[in-house]
């Protein structure tokens, strides 16, 4: 029990120190200018074949947590999504890379159908 208590105090202390220096620095008003500093949050993708194409291209316009956030999707939905990123929004990948990305997404974030 003592050990647990000590552990809890440690965590609370660490958490509050961190919260303090964050609050102090992430929003600054000088004269008529208000500025914020956005946190750098990384949500890792699953390891798998083709991951390098995703990390190299699918983070140009947005963080790759757009991928992690999705429910498990059938391959057809992943294909349509990749196609939208490339044809509608201009994600700079060729056909072979598109295929590798679709395979990666269907294998790691798919429904298996």
């Amino acid at each position, binding site marked *: 029990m003592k050990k647990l208590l000590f552990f809890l105090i440690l965590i609370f202390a660490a958490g509050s120190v961190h919260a303090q220096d964050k609050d102090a620095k992430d929003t600054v008003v000088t004269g008529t200018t208000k500025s914020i500093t956005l946190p750098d949050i990384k949500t890792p993708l699953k390891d798998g074949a083709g991951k390098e194409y995703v990390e190299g291209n699918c983070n140009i316009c*947005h963080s790759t947590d757009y991928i992690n956030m999705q429910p498990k999707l059938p391959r057809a939905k992943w294909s349509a999504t990749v196609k939208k990123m490339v044809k509608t929004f201009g994600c700079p990948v060729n056909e072979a890379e598109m295929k590798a990305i679709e395979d990666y997404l269907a294998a790691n974030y798919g429904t298996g159908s």
Partner: protein
Amino acid sequence: MDKWLTRRFFLKTVGVFTATAAIGSWPANIFADEKKLVRFPEKTDLILLTSRPPQLETPLHYFKELLTPNEALFVRWHLANIPTSVDLSQWRLNIGGNTDRELHMSMDDLKKLDKVSYTAVIQCSGNGRSFFEPSIPGGQWENGAMGNVTWTGARLKDILNAAGIKAGSVDVAFNGLDSAPLPTLADFVKSLPVDKAVEDDIIVAYEMNGAPLTMLNGFPARLIVPGWYATYWMKALTDIKVLTQTFEEFWMKPAYRIPDNACGCVEPGTAPKKTVPINRMTTRSVIVTPTQGSGLKAKNPVEVMGVAFSGGYGIKDVVVSVDGGKTWNTARLGRDLGKYSWVQWFHSWRPEKPGKYTVMAKATNSIGESQPFDSLWNPSGYLWNKIEKIEVNVI
């Protein structure tokens, strides 16, 4: 950074653990819940959907409050280049296009116009998208892409009249400080039909709950279109352009559209023949307490509580069922802050016997619009308003 996240989340979890240990009941899915809480500038811990651009969801418990605190209001941007620094001495609201004159208003100019204030629900078009079946790609929001806020600003109508709308105007387009990271990606620009734009209640707000807007909610000014989904509520507004043609760039067409029929719905998994831009919000109620899977004690009174709102027509009544829809009770409604605000509703319940119970709530607005028992599906996952079913365990 990742480490910090985990620690923060763990911190929260520990907090819940000690609190519930004290009262002796356990939230059912405390460890199953993998939601990540993150802290952004001027914000409290919110649920992370995406980080760049930020999409952050409000935890459900904040809806116990009639007004959503600024630091807890959800965040939703579309394009990665979001404004992180604004100099008010440089910022201007530019109005032009099919107008008698061009205006470049400073914040002081804006504040000289008639000051209007009201409370209105702000809700993302995709709020509740994660509940649709079959599931729909896009922001996987639960119920936290909404909030109830008192907005203060100048009437859009007064701004447009100062510029002078010329004959032949069709649409009014709105642009903000955010921009696309690649030139192939369309800038986020939205439009309203000119007849809608001159309605009395549409304002350019510079305050939320009596304070300047937070940067992530659109500092220094944003459009408020009460009753309509927040996709039109342009954040960090800079440009208003009156047009002689229908505006149909990407974020108006094909994005943000609903099936052109009375229910805004199609057979699940199919595509509509014709679509229209999403517009007025559907009527809905959200159960805030008890929460899904919570454990209650037999013969102990509980307050079933939630919020209800509709697209600008107030709420006439809310009925609550604690037996999965067999019988219904009229809920007591809280303070009325006007037709655009949500209303809190309450139903006191004393479960007699142990067992599983299903709590439901159904709202109806003043023109008879209500909620469906089965979900109405559309390909983009908008308009979610299915009657909720919250399962609780009475011991």
